[in-house]
């Protein structure tokens, strides 16, 4: 198990803050996007891209790399922030995000954005596609592991559970699903729209090894991912309890911010709360 040093923890937390800030800048610049679910996943993306994933920004198509599928593709802003910061492309490419000549699409496109392993946006696909990737890696005896980030609202889609069943049948211990459980979806609180209670039991009943972590604790996320590597007979689901809109007081736990764009004043307020200043030329 990795013992994270204080410096490592601080560094990952700082990265998460910067991913939040960049997500909001990108969304503000585009005049469109999904801030709530991007902010809830910031620590998860920080830990994956800056600690866990075996990837090489210079060789995004390296066949032995770990794979990551952002199944909740509407959180594209935080993925783009992570990929840019990790060196897959220049952050400035997102200055005209939303224009037809910007390569980076509203939702992740594997053919247009370096480092995106799978196109996403229509909710539900990540788990089953991840099953195929994990099967492929196993057949090749590759060390490549597949990570899929899904949303809790997304879990209402039946295809998620079709994929979950297949992963369990084939005992895909090289597949890790991280569930961003923030209990808020587009129309309101998940427990009102369509309750998905007993989430851990649902995944356990499907044959998965389940653990629950605080999705805003980089230490707990790292420990969870470490433990996942020790599970050799079943796929792993890490339920990350999160807060939608995390880090920006007026966005937290409010479904309005699932898919709305901050004003200039709101962006400045948000960046102030995150402890990062607006880039003068940003």
């Amino acid at each position: 198990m990795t013992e994270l040093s204080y410096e490592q923890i601080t560094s990952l937390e700082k990265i998460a803050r910067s991913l939040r800030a960049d997500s909001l800048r990108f969304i503000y610049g585009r005049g469109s996007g999904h801030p709530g679910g991007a902010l809830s996943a910031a620590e998860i993306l920080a830990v994956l891209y800056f600690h866990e994933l075996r990837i090489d920004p210079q060789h995004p198509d390296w066949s032995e790399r770990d794979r990551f599928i952002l199944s909740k593709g509407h959180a594209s802003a935080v993925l783009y922030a992570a990929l840019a910061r990790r060196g897959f492309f220049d952050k400035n490419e997102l200055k005209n995000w939303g224009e037809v000549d910007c390569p980076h699409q509203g939702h992740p496109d594997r053919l247009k954005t370096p480092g995106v392993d799978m196109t996403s946006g229509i909710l539900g696909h990540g788990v089953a596609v991840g099953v195929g990737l994990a099967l492929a890696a196993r057949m090749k005896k590759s060390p490549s592991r597949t990570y899929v980030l899904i949303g809790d609202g997304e879990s209402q889609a039946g295809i998620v559970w079709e994929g979950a069943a297949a992963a369990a049948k084939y005992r895909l211990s090289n597949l890790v699903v991280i569930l961003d459980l923030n209990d808020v979806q587009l129309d309101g609180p998940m427990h009102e729209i369509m309750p998905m209670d007993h989430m851990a039991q649902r995944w356990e009943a499907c044959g998965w090894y389940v653990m629950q972590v605080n999705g805003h604790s980089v230490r707990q996320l790292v420990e969870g991912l470490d433990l996942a590597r020790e599970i050799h007979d079943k796929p792993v689901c890490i339920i990350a309890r999160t807060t939608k809109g995390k880090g920006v007081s007026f966005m937290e736990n409010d479904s309005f911010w699932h898919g709305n764009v901050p004003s200039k004043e709101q962006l400045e307020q948000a960046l102030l709360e995150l402890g990062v200043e607006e880039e003068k030329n940003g």
Partner: protein
Amino acid sequence: MAELSMREGYGRALADYGKMNPKVVAVDVDTSASTLSHFFAREHPERFFNVGIAEPCAVDVGVGLALGGHIPFVNAFAALLALRSLEQIRTCVCYANTNVKLAASYAGLSDFKDGPTHFAMTDIANMRALPNMNIIVPCDAAQAAAFVPLVAELVGPVYLRINRGSTLPVYQPGSALQIGKGILHRQGIDLTIVAAGSMVGRALLAAQELDKDGIHARVVEIHTIKPLDGEILLDAAKETGAIVTAEEHVRAGGLGGAVSELLAETYPIPIERVGIRDEFCPTGRNIEGLLDACGLSVAEIIFAARKVKKMKPGGTEKQ
């Protein structure tokens, strides 16, 4: 001896080809004993994945396998593959442009006993509208088998339409076969019958009958509905001046739609489309009788041929 069923031609060919190409894998949805992907499963159990009755999952698992460098053949009933999994096919296969082969079995009306719930009569239309998709409709068991290596070796999404039973045999094993290239089966000057799948054999029968009346019909097989062979169709339009299309599919959006769209824009001539009327077909006792009952008889092709010939400028029907 009864002709080999198209699904058996396909299933055995997939198992055989799998011996030569270790990248080929197969996914099925609890229908391997029907689609006959079980021949592959027996030969290559480590490369066969049965995900149960979950077509959307099967397509997405295929997508993941393709992303991992394999060549997945996703086997399912065409009615479900083309409709229940249509969004998976749109997003994860066509838009993401993944190297997935959709083996759509029990196509058209070929599952005659199970009836309209199991018929796939709109699948070509569903697939044709999708960018990046290649659509292949073999005419018989031998051709279905011959297409397996070609489909596997074409990089990109393919929809391969497989009938449950046998069709009138047409394809000579070993003869030229190329994705995107139509086949001229018979020369003729008065009109061209453009046929796909099970209707190729019927089109040839219709041409023989027309010949007796002095009407010389060309017969062109279009096995690749997308990308369409514009050259062979334009030649047919220019040289024979009238076209009848024939397919085991609704008239909207299939072969007839594709040919009509092409020629309306490039070389307008009289066209008649033989296909399933805009209604749901009944259950049948056998496939040949059901095809006849659903507007796909040889007589329908002959009727359409006479009609288009008459519609040609200065055309008169010979009796």
